[in-house]
């Protein structure tokens, strides 16, 4: 399949990329979300500005927290010792995207710009309080992952704006995990649950939880978090959280003929239990 015709330009710097991008243009890095939708004619940008060669957009640095360049690939994030230590859930989620060939070239910036509700990393980014750093012609701004994901395939990103990096707090002292129920054919998440638990002795001092796959976007789950916070993660607290998570995602449910909304909602409770077990196990 061939995409529609477009003009192609290669940018050597962020400033050059921002000066090149036109009204109907898109930025191209790995292209592993953008090119498939262009081939299927679900998108037809008139211009692609290739940012794949801009070194400053790529790489992982760990200095207090994590900073991940927008064109860092899923494979690089999954294999990073810093990410594994400081946000184990994100390393796990990035290691579950597509397959090795897709992870080798698909980038984290492209992933979140595409905002596929069944993708894995957004769920962890929302749970773990990531910040998305964005640059546009009028300057730069930062937005929380929770506010960045607006709706189905819809983000806070304006036309002509470029995601430059993501930052995450250091959660090396948290119990962090991402667990998903993969679709048996596509391996996309039917339900994906990210948990990040800060324990103080045997008590859960802070719980951060997000659900994706079952929803039109990754959703932060305050009810489930409240059910776990202050508990010893005993059976009663986990059961209460597994019940509360269904209400947390109630306004955002997505479904299809094989896995309807009600089923995914039920599975969110099941997979929250598994994510807690994986985080604390």
């Amino acid at each position, binding site marked *: *399949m*061939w*995409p*529609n*015709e*477009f*003009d*192609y330009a*290669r940018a050597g710097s962020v400033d050059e990329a921002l000066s090149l991008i036109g009204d109907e243009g898109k930025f*191209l890095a790995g*292209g*592993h979300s953008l*090119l*498939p939708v262009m*081939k*299927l004619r679900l998108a037809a940008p008139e211009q*692609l500005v*290739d940012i*794949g060669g801009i070194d400053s957009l790529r790489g992982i640095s760990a200095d207090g927290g994590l900073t991940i360049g927008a064109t860092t690939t899923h*494979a690089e994030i999954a294999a990073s010792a810093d990410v594994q230590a400081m946000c184990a859930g994100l390393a796990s989620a990035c290691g579950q995207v*597509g*397959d*090795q*060939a*897709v992870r*080798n*070239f698909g980038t984290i910036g492209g992933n979140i710009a595409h905002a596929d509700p069944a993708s894995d990393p957004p769920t962890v980014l929302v749970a773990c309080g990531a910040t998305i750093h964005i640059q546009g012609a009028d300057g730069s701004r930062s937005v929380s992952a929770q506010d960045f994901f607006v709706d189905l395939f819809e983000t806070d990103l304006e036309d002509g704006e470029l995601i430059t990096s993501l930052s995450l707090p250091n959660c090396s002292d948290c119990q962090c995990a991402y667990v998903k129920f993969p679709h048996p054919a*596509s*391996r996309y998440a039917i339900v994906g649950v990210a948990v990040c638990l800060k324990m103080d002795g045997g008590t859960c001092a802070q719980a951060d939880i997000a659900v994706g796959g079952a929803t039109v976007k990754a959703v932060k789950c305050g009810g489930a978090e409240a059910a776990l916070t202050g508990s010893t993660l005993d059976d009663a607290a986990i059961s209460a959280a597994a019940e509360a998570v269904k209400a947390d995602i109630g306004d955002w449910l997505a479904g299809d003929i094989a896995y309807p909304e009600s089923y995914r909602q039920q599975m969110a409770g099941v997979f929250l239990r598994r994510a807690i077990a994986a985080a604390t196990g």
Partner: protein
Amino acid sequence: MQVSMTVNGVAHEADVDPRTLLVHFLREALDLTGTKIGCDTSQCGACTVHLNGKVLKSCTLLAVQADGCEVTTIEGLAEAGEHHPMQTAFWENHGLQCGYCTPGMIMASAAFVRDNPGASEAEIRHYLEGNICRCTGYHNIVKAVKQVADAAAAT
């Protein structure tokens, strides 16, 4: 758009339409038809090649994105007339039925064993999730890859 890349050790330059996918460039401009087009949606792995040593589904990259890169296709895997060990293992274990997925399977598996000598059967099966054999002939494919992985661990 002018593009230059080294494919199987040979430097190529060409003027391409920007929307040319790498797989089309390899098959149609360079006549390297060993690389197949299967699903054309990044799922089946029939178009797997190596780009700068990493496995890539060549239906999901523009030829212009590979500018300045080194590409290896199934035609370039054998060295000095000798089959790559993975090609030999697929031959010895009959790791194919119709053969359509074979170039992609071999390219993916060769990179995997290079990076993971001694891989277990479970790891091989997990890794090959991005390469689909529609004949469902996985048994001998996995056997072939395991043979090379075991030999790589022993050396």
